[in-house]
């Protein structure tokens, strides 16, 4: 009898604990992710327990401010350190990291069902966001989760009070509007003034393109720099006038944080700022402009509208010792289900999957339609107007754009005229290109 009971007990024990004790795909693996501090990474970090439950791999996020993260990632990758398995990358970084083989090609991993259990359905991504992470051969190096562009956020009540029934459509109009919207102590707008490819150049480039300016004579065939062309100078002059005449105090060194807070706290009438920041601008706990805002495409110049466009994602460090688990996590974190969950759990809304954009729950949470038009519609429209070549995909572009950003700031603070500042920048860009054997 005792033997029988023991046998039954053992059988029950095996039947109940067997599945739990079965080895999971990546048991014992610990993935380390080098990330930027933003709503996406905060939320994914919380949701990662589900990935651990499914695969056994644990995930640790190390989050830094944007500038610090970019610098740390550069050092980690170029020194071939295996400390991090996944790293944050912007679309324009691919050209910087792929020649040296610092990023792991993804195609083989994503197509291997032993590693990535579910089809990542790449066709569901906004195509341009995927393309930004491909090399010239079409190899994929990162999966995007963040589609960035800028739209115009405007306070419809303030515009109406100043006699405007629609937002400005051109940069010249924007300046004229500000002339009526601004008063002493009440700036009209806030702009990024910090000199960097991701700060003042993220704003100014669309003005430069809109006024006919380009970085180069005929990229990539003729790399003669043209950042001091007549169109570029005209755009720089207007940029500086807008910032100096109508910007918030401290604009010259402002970044997206200052702009976001200025709009969120109702200190300005309108801004052209990152669409993904709508979640913060309209934060239910902090915002003073809920119910007041309208959304529109960013202004155009005489030569057209060139909305900023960029994508951000995560790539696998080529030196990682856990590439398969990293690929599985990458696919899981950018899956339609996870992406949607992130948007529902946080203020993050810059999604890269078409299925999420079309999702009713997502639309309901992030539509922000206060009677002046849908935010989601303006965002989608701007993404379509965005130019893929907004940031050019070659390694020296960051240094070049930063140099132009510095020239802009020199003009803004009055130490040089726009022409002088951009002439000097143009000369320095020639040096940068010569050093890289591109001229």
């Amino acid at each position, binding site marked *: 009898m005792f033997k029988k009971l023991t046998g039954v007990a053992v059988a029950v024990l095996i039947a109940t604990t067997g599945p739990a004790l079965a080895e999971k795909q990546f048991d014992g693996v610990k993935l380390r992710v080098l990330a930027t501090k933003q709503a996406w990474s905060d939320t994914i970090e919380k949701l990662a327990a589900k990935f651990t439950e499914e695969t056994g791999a644990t995930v640790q996020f190390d989050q830094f401010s944007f500038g610090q993260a970019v*610098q740390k990632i*550069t*050092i980690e990758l*170029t020194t071939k350190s295996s400390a991090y398995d996944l790293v944050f990358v912007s679309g324009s970084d691919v050209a*910087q*990291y792929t*020649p*040296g083989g*610092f990023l792991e090609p993804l195609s083989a991993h994503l197509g291997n069902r032993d590693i990535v259990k579910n089809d990542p359905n790449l066709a569901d991504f906004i195509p341009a966001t995927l393309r930004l992470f491909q090399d010239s051969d079409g190899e994929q190096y990162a999966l995007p989760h963040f589609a960035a562009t800028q739209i115009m956020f405007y306070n419809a009540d303030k515009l109406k009070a100043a006699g405007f029934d629609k937002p400005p459509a051109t940069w010249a109009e924007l300046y004229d509007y500000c002339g009526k919207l601004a008063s002493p102590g009440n700036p009209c707008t806030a702009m990024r003034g*910090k*000199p960097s490819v991701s700060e003042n150049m993220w704003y100014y480039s669309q003005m430069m393109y809109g006024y006919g300016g380009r970085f180069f004579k005929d990229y990539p065939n003729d790399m003669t720099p043209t950042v001091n062309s007549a169109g570029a100078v005209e755009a720089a002059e207007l940029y500086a006038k807008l910032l100096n005449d109508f910007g918030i*105090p*401290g*604009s*010259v*060194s402002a970044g997206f944080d200052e702009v976001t807070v200025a709009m969120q706290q109702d200190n300005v009438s309108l801004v052209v700022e990152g669409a993904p920041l709508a979640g913060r601008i309209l934060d239910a706990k902090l915002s003073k402009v809920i119910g007041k805002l309208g959304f529109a495409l960013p202004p155009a110049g005489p030569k057209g509208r060139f909305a900023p466009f960029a994508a951000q994602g995560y790539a696998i460090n080529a030196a990682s010792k856990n590439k398969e688990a990293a690929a599985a996590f990458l696919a899981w974190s950018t899956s339609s289900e996870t992406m949607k969950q992130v948007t529902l759990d946080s203020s993050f809304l810059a999604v890269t999957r078409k299925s999420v954009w079309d999702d009713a729950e997502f639309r309901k949470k992030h539509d922000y339609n206060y009677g002046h038009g849908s935010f989601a519609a303006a965002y989608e429209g701007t993404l379509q107007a965005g130019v893929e070549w907004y940031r050019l995909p070659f*390694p*020296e572009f*960051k*240094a070049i754009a*930063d*140099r132009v950003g*510095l020239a802009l*700031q*020199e003009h*803004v*603070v009055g*130490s040089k005229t726009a022409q002088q500042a951009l002439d*000097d920048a143009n*000369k*320095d860009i020639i*040096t940068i290109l*010569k*050093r*890289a*054997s591109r001229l």
Partner: protein
Amino acid sequence: MKNIIRHRDSAYLAMVAPSAILLVIITIIPILATFYISLHFFNPTSTRQFGWVGWENYGYLLEDSRYLNSLRVMLWLIVIPVALQITLGMALAIALKEKLAGTSWMRVLFLLPAVIPPAVSGLVWKLFIVPGAGGVTYMGSLLGIDLQLDLLSSPNSALFVIIVCSTWVGTPFVALLFLSSLETISKDLYEAAHLDGAGWLQSHWSISIPIMRPVIMTVMVFRILEALAIFPIIFILTGGGPAGSTEPVNYYAYVSGFQYLKIDYAATIIVSFFVILMVFCAPFLIRIARAAR
């Protein structure tokens, strides 16, 4: 006798060797390696391969307006703060030596800026001058003045702030060194000068300063070499801006090396920085060496 000398030399060598080897490893080799890199192209993210370029990078330096600007900023950040530190440091040392009323607690207080980590100093100053909520605005409000000054947004005022910070950080250290030197001067000299009719100022001008000249020169060399060690303060307060107005050579080297991974160019900038500093310090070092003989 020869054996004794040989044995003594060997003993000297054995005692000096560890320090000399350590010095070579931590100083000479990095300097030579930096110079070697500066003669090559080296950017791990570039499609161009590592290779010999000779003096090419040095040629590019002379065409680089950002580098030339950083040289100008470096001069400002060396000459003015060092001059202020020496002048104010001497004045404070004399005040402390004279034991003027209310100066007894100053020795302890003076140590504070010198022992606060530079990054913390930068944060303290940033909080002090930030418009709207900073200490400057508050002090203005106490006086009934609206001091909503954004000092970091204008090139001249930002540079001024960095100079003030640098002076604030360095002066107490200089004052304490000068004070210890002042205290070694015999009181008899001052009493004799007093009997001869010399006033307070004349006594210090004709006695303290000439006697302290070697100390002043040594301190000056140290302060010149240390002048740009305020990198963390610049990093936190201005990030080299606005418009490069607070970006000295070492900061530009950091940007080139760590933001753009132009390792060779950063090395070139550092070598030029080293040479310029040596040129700056050479007259003082020669004088100190001569005085030592």
